[in-house]
């Protein structure tokens, strides 16, 4: 039960919790937070896999994937928030 595997399992649990969050919640902001958590969960699984390599230095490819993933996740979140802001303003104007 190496720590890498443990963190991968934590990541898997995070994905599961986030999946529940995405579908059980109804406010878009909460679903967005759940999605971000799901991303973190997936990245945990990814980096957990990197550590299982027998060699001393961890495998850098998952690290690069996670870095790219984080930036992509944050851009998507930013756009989703802008969309939510715009939606609520339009809802307010249209009454």
């Amino acid at each position, binding site marked *: 039960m190496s720590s890498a595997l443990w963190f991968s399992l934590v990541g898997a649990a995070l994905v599961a919790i986030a999946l529940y969050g995405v579908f059980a919640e109804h406010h878009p902001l909460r679903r967005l937070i759940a999605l971000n958590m799901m991303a973190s969960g*997936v990245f945990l*699984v990814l980096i957990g896999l990197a550590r299982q390599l027998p060699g001393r230095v961890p495998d850098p490819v998952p690290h690069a994937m996670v870095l790219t993933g984080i930036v992509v996740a944050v851009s998507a979140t930013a756009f989703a928030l802008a969309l939510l802001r*715009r939606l609520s303003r339009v809802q307010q104007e249209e009454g």
Partner: protein
Amino acid sequence: MSEALVVLMVLLPLLLAGMLLLAPGGWRQRMGLSATLLSVAPLPPLLWSVWHSGVVEVALGGWQPPLGIALRADGLALLLLTLTALIALPLGLHAGPWFRAHATVGGRGGEWFWPLWLFLWSSLNLLFLAADLFNAYVGLELGGLAAVALVALGGGRDALQAALRYLLLALFASMLYLLGVALLYGAGGTLDLALLGGRLESGVASRAALVLITLGLSLKGALVPFHFWLPPAHATAPAPVSALLSALVVKAPLVLLLRIWFELFVPLGFGAAGEVLTLLGVVAILWGSLQALRQQRIKPLVAWSTVAQLGYLFLVFAIATGLAWSATLLHLTAHALAKAALFLAAGNIVLALGDDRLSSLRGASHGMPLTFFTVGLAGVSLMGLPPSGGFVAKWLLLQAALEQGRWLPVVAILAGSLLAAAYLFPLLRHALTGTLKPTGESAGRSLPLRLELPPLLLALLALLLGVLASWPLALLKPAMPVVLS
């Protein structure tokens, strides 16, 4: 030389999008069309070289996989790249005047349509060419974001609501897909599709990856249980955008799933899981058509028709023969052309009449005979009647299904085309009844030719596909996955 063309197919739209962003708003509309034309430039020579000398492999950065990223331009990729270009040109011609006409109606989308569209185009080209799974993930995200932004151009409350729901689900689906890719990397040690084939053996990890990747891509490809985001998004988006979404964007994830399924999972012996997808495809055809029948407005009707037609594309997973594979891709091409024509024509109708209720269509064809003629032609291809491309695809699909004695898909295909006739009829019947409204003047204002010709061109392409079906099929033959041929 052809390696450069492959890379240009993806980079050129990006570069032009960047340049468009630097240009002031007014300029963008004028430069948009020329940017679209320029982006098509690398395609003909690439098509020529792949047609003659087979697959073009590009190892980016000079590093061969498993370290580096590879792009593969095989027959399948070229067919889809050509399809995208064939839709892009008429669509570009239509989008300019359409958004200008809408600028008067209060929308300001024209300025932002072009850069977003070029980003989307670049992501589509990338998805068709990608041989690296993580690279495909980034392509899916790029495409997803651009598509949602284009839907949100609609500006209205329901357009934004549909866009937000589409975005949340697209992100969720990408996460599932990435998780599947992570597991594959964990088991196979590489992200390259071709290399993974040899390194995986059928364990729990690859089975889990199968489930996750299929779930993720089916959700993005709007297979029936996950289709609820599509009708509102495609119906509320501006017409050129709905045409893009229904014709190309919703198909790219499916093409990726086809590649992964037949190059990776079937060799591992997971082919049996295809029965579930085919069953869902059958349900999609029937459920989508029935819902389309119930719609009272034009664009939701056409959007639900997309849900139904997507069902055809999932039938191949259980049949799993070379014939079914090429039939599915031919159907994808025929549907893309016909649906793009239909959505643009629907956009014209709504623009001229001012409202998109079916009941207000009476006598509308007087002002715009060409648009309703396009609806007729596109309808012919969607119903799969000769001489359209839809008919050839239906013919091959039926043949593939009958070869294995699978009666459920056969009945679904036939019922689907009859139902298509049923739900397209309300649109068609007004195409020919030229009787004027009781008030004597024609229902809507007549449309300029610039708006009516592009959809007609697309509809004619759909019919031409029927006559020249042997070309795309020849292009597809060498690209057929090994397990199928």
